[in-house]
């Protein structure tokens, strides 16, 4: 009776086991899809890309060396493909989308506070972070990646991971203050 750890599934996929491939896909599809969607902001494009990512899992399973977790390996491939897609589309479109997510300057802090509760304000401000900051926030909180895993997925040193996350939190706090919510940090 074969076990079903990610590493075991990859070993079986390397031998052409389609059932193992389906199990691995079912296990990771939602998180990988959402990770891609954060970059490309288009569900159709995200579906195409998740297909590309898992095709590479099928083709390259025999080359997986187990130095990182399987999910980290997959997210690394997903990030590369998503960023390539974004670069093809052009940065201007991305900047426009980010600008659209910023808090409405016509709102005074008081009216914003009236419109939304604190949790909703935090969510709105997270959406307004730069792509770089939203990515690391997502990797740490939603994808639950360790410092070393984030470093591997993004391709930056671990100290930079910690610093980037710190400044993402600071930027989030600045946006919260602009929205009229002072949480007392930093």
């Amino acid at each position: 009776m074969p076990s079903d750890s990610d590493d075991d599934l990859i070993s079986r996929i390397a031998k052409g086991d389609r059932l193992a491939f389906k199990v691995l896909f079912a296990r990771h599809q939602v998180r990988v899809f959402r990770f891609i969607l954060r970059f490309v902001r288009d569900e159709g494009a995200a579906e195409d890309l998740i297909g590309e990512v898992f095709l590479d899992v099928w083709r390259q399973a025999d080359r997986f060396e187990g130095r990182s977790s399987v999910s980290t390996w997959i997210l690394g491939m997903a990030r590369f493909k998503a960023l390539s897609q974004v670069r093809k589309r052009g940065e201007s479109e991305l900047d426009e989308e980010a600008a659209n997510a910023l808090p409405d300057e016509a709102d005074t802090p008081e009216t914003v506070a009236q419109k939304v509760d604190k949790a909703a304000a935090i969510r709105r401000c997270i959406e307004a972070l730069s792509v770089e900051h939203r990515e690391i926030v997502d990797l740490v909180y939603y994808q639950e990646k360790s410092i070393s895993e984030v470093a591997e997925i993004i391709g930056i040193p671990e100290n930079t991971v910690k610093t980037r996350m710190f400044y993402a939190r600071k930027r989030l706090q600045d946006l919260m203050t602009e929205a009229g919510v002072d949480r007392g940090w930093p």
Partner: protein
Amino acid sequence: MTNETPGSPDFDERRALSELLPWYAAGTLSPQETARVAAALKVDPTLAEELDIVREDQAASIVLAEAMAVPPAGTIDRILARIDAEPLTSAHRVAKVKAGLVDWIVERFAAFQPRTLAYAGVAAALVLVAQAGIIASFVTGGSSTFQTASYGTAQTATGFEGTFALVGFAPTANAQDISALLQANGATIVDGPRAGGLYRVRIGARGLSQPEIDRILGQFRTQTGVVRFVGPSN
């Protein structure tokens, strides 16, 4: 952020602890770093307040992510259709050839007469090889010997759960007979041979009832041409 509280860590340490808080909240720090942050939280109330803010951010981030779309139904089918449409990778080709070789070896040995084969252990080992899919050197080069799962390997020790029996196969049993008996009873050799030439055989799921165990062991005992001994195993 403050470093002015008496007894609190110095500025650099305070900043380092602050940087670790998101991973502390997510539970993805190493045990050593977790202990370091936990110790600091006890003596620095400002760090604890900062952790509350981190937890708010964490909760909001997860809510946002969970509100996002999921892959459309049928995505996996479309990926599998693309896999079918492209040539096999070299690794998949090798795996397919290996699987074919196992079948070929089992058929060949099964055709031998008992006198030729002589030892039931060889036949059982072949079945073990075939079942585990473990075979070496036939395609990839190297020495042309079998690599069987030996007693106590990770795969056999930890890869199986269920109800087990100890089985000794008759000297006249061939691989085909052993395979047929195991298949008829939904059984699998998981390791061996142990002392006395006994094999550990999985006969069903964990927690099989005693009457069911007795029934299956009875099935084995009736096959006197294939089985010389059968008994329960832990």
